[in-house]
């Protein structure tokens, strides 16, 4: 008998291969009870895989799992749930057209009939909401919730199943700073109750802020496990990528030139009749990065889509867009994505998997996507696949896309590398104007550094960049000017030098900072 209580989780020699890919190799991990344990690692390092094994979603090829000191066979998620493990996946596992309540109850019903389960869950949700500040409308359809709220539903699902050990896979990737702060308050509350939390993130700031211990993975192996207090961001970053990483964007001051994009009075009413944009005016000059901050769902997506030439079906648009002084049509045949590209607009869409890539296409086919009409890719009436492949190989090398195999389907790349494929495609075209949404969502810090560098380089080459991100750090680091969007209009403009997180946070919540000061901090 030892005095120290058994760790909540202990993994011994876990290995897992997906066909030829060795995603986890002989991994050991110990997570003490009542702690928050961080796991970091590059894209594709095997973090999600490891956690999915712990949750019984995948079966390990080898290895042992101990929960509370006792070996348990976790053959499926049911077993994991019984062992007190809950997991919030990187890609949510929610049924989009179910209500919150139905999603929470699914798989944890009390009996054959639904009614009693639902009403019990309703009460339970109320209690959990009060206890942890996890408010969500139980009757809302999940597809109508913001990602932040969807995540809450995932957490509620785990808590509803009385999870003692909660795994969160990149939970903050989709959250605003305020939402992230809120999440961390919840996590601390859970920890204080004695629950154990495993947190996967790419953000070292978060690791430093909230975890007790941190483990680092690289290429399928566990390379280090340390106490957070005894390490620092630079060391972690180096452990992660195996080299020194620049944690701040180095950029020379902007030298803005002539206006490239002018938007005047842009309004949009969507198919349901909701006004999504309420008169947007903005201007971006050559050699300038304009950052748009804002909580997701305040019209940024619509703005990017309209500029990129694919507003959602049934939308009604009004206003004026000029590129290099020439007016661009808002809608109709001359206003599609292809026409926009021809006019010189590049676009990294917010949702790389649904829009930016064809997941079943190979990497090289994806690298021509949207530019498949470009003259250099044609040979007579046919497409010049050799030329496209050659072009793709170059981009794969220059962007260090891994694995450097152009014949692999896009879906076989990790999220970060998928993002690099899209960025490589759009940035290397050297467009007059680059629209870029959430450029580093879910991307590891090595890749973030690289992508940021490329955006700045594009700017320095005299191009205009419109950056939309929910990541305030990113906005502040990259932008030459910052606009904050709220409820379809521009709340305010700031220069990064003079802006503070609090100030921007207020604007993002729709509150003028002056008034917020007077009123005593709404938000």
């Amino acid at each position: 008998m030892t005095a120290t209580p058994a760790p909540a989780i202990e993994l011994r020699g876990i290995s897992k291969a997906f066909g030829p890919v060795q995603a986890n190799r002989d991994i050991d991990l110990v997570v003490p009870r009542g702690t928050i344990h961080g796991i970091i690692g590059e894209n594709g390092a095997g973090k999600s895989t490891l956690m999915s094994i712990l949750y019984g979603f995948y079966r390990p090829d080898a290895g042992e799992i101990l929960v509370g000191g006792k070996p348990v066979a976790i053959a499926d998620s049911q077993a994991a749930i019984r062992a007190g493990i809950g997991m919030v996946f990187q890609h949510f596992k929610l049924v989009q057209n179910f209500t919150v309540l139905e999603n929470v109850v699914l798989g944890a019903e009390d009996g054959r009939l639904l009614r009693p389960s639902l009403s019990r869950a309703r009460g339970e949700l109320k209690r959990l909401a009060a206890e942890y500040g996890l408010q969500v409308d139980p009757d809302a359809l999940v597809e109508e919730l913001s990602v932040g709220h969807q995540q809450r539903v995932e957490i509620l699902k785990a808590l509803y199943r009385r999870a003692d050990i909660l795994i969160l896979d990149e939970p903050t990737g989709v959250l605003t700073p305020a939402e992230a702060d809120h999440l961390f308050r919840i996590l601390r509350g859970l920890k204080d109750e004695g629950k154990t939390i495993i947190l996967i993130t790419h953000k070292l700031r978060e690791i430093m802020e909230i975890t007790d211990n941190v483990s680092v993975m690289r290429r399928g192996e566990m390379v280090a496990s340390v106490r957070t207090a005894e390490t620092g961001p630079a060391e972690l970053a180096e452990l992660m990528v195996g080299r020194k990483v620049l944690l701040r964007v180095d950029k020379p001051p902007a030298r803005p030139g002539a206006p490239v994009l002018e938007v005047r009075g842009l309004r949009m009413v969507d198919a349901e009749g909701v006004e999504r944009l309420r008169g947007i005016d903005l201007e971006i000059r050559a050699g300038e990065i304009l950052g748009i901050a804002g909580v997701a769902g305040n019209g940024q997506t619509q703005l990017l889509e309209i500029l990129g030439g694919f507003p959602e079906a049934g939308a009604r648009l009004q206003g004026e867009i000029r590129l290099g002084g020439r007016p661009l049509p808002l809608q109709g045949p001359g206003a599609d994505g292809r026409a926009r590209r021809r006019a010189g607009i590049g676009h990294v869409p917010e949702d790389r998997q649904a829009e930016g890539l064809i997941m079943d296409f190979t990497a090289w086919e994806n690298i021509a996507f949207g530019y498949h009409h470009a003259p250099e890719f044609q040979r007579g009436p046919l497409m010049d696949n050799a030329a496209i492949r050659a072009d793709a190989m170059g981009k794969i090398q220059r962007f260090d896309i891994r694995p450097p195999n152009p014949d692999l389907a896009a879906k076989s790349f990790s999220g970060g590398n998928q993002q690099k494929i899209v960025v490589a495609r759009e940035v290397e075209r050297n467009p007059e104007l680059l629209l870029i949404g959430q450029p580093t969502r879910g991307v590891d810090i090595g890749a973030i550094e690289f992508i940021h560098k490329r955006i700045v380089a594009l700017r320095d080459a005299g191009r205009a960049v419109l950056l939309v991100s929910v990541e305030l750090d990113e906005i502040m680091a990259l932008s030459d000017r910052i606009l904050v969007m709220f409820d379809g209009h521009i709340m305010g403009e700031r220069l990064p030098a003079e802006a503070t997180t609090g100030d921007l946070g207020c604007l993002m919540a729709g509150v003028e900072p002056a008034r917020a000061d007077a009123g005593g901090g709404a938000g």
Partner: protein
Amino acid sequence: MERMPKWADVILTPLISLVLAFAISALVILAIGESPAEALKVMVQGALGSSYGWGFTLYYTTNFVFTGLAVMVAYHAGLFNIGGEGQAAMGGLGVALVVLALPWPHWALALPAAAMGAALFGALWALVPAWLQARRGSHIVITTIMFNFIAAAALNYMLVNVLRPVGSMDPASARFPEAAHLPKLSEMALGLGVEWGRNTPANVTFFLAIAACLLVWLLIWRTRLGYEIRAFGKSEPAALYAGISPVRITVLAMLVSGALAGLMAVNNVMGEAERLVLNAVEGAGFIGIAVALMGRNHPLGVLLAALLFGFLYQGGGELALWTSIPRELIVVIQALVILFTGALDNMVRMPLERLFAALRRKGA
């Protein structure tokens, strides 16, 4: 690196599946009290054992290539075209109208015109469902099914009331003029001094089918339109992002698909029957679905699958003609082939993968 060598997946998996399908078929034959060995002999002999058998096998193959390609092209655009049957029937109408409209001096002139008629009618018959899908969101599966029935009715009307020579019992058009008869493969072989497949229906259209495979391959994998079709079929939001118009792609893909299905009529109506009869398509439109899916939506695969079905059709026909085995046995064998090679392929693939993994480990 793949889990198992590509050649194994492309050749070994279907081959073993095929063997399994035939093994079960043998059991069925035994169960109805006939000899599987005898049946196999008759089938192989009748379909592949003589130039005569080949003449029929290739004729059926030609039909299935067209309908298979039709399903395939639509499938790449994410559209499930169940309307090959109707489109091919209307293609037949196109052929008949073209051939009967003018006194064609030579088949070489009549063929391109008739092919255009067939493609045009087939394409037009696909246009309405396509347009409704693109513009109104009417599900193409329903509309193409409905258009099969409507085509049957329209054809019936045309044959009985318009194209049928007065006094003829047969709801069929007049015979096509001699000059518009397409050369049979047997005649072409004779021209080369070879006695091959006398009195068999395989005709020049076979080469048209091969050309169609090639062209479809080029279209889908080498042209911008094909690229856009595939992109749209995989992800509509991404297609919109790239400026690919869903309406344009839906309509174009279905036009090509319908045209291909319609082109089948050149083979069966102009090449074989030399007049338009009711129900000339005989289910080839539906077999096209199986052919496309089994051919993994690739023209080469479609060609091979069409050949397989051509063999089954002809071999099965022989079986029913010259033995006491009912013709429905062939339908059962077809079903088993479709099932094993198309739907139960993983049953074979999974153990194979394990086998190759073991081999690799030993080798490494």
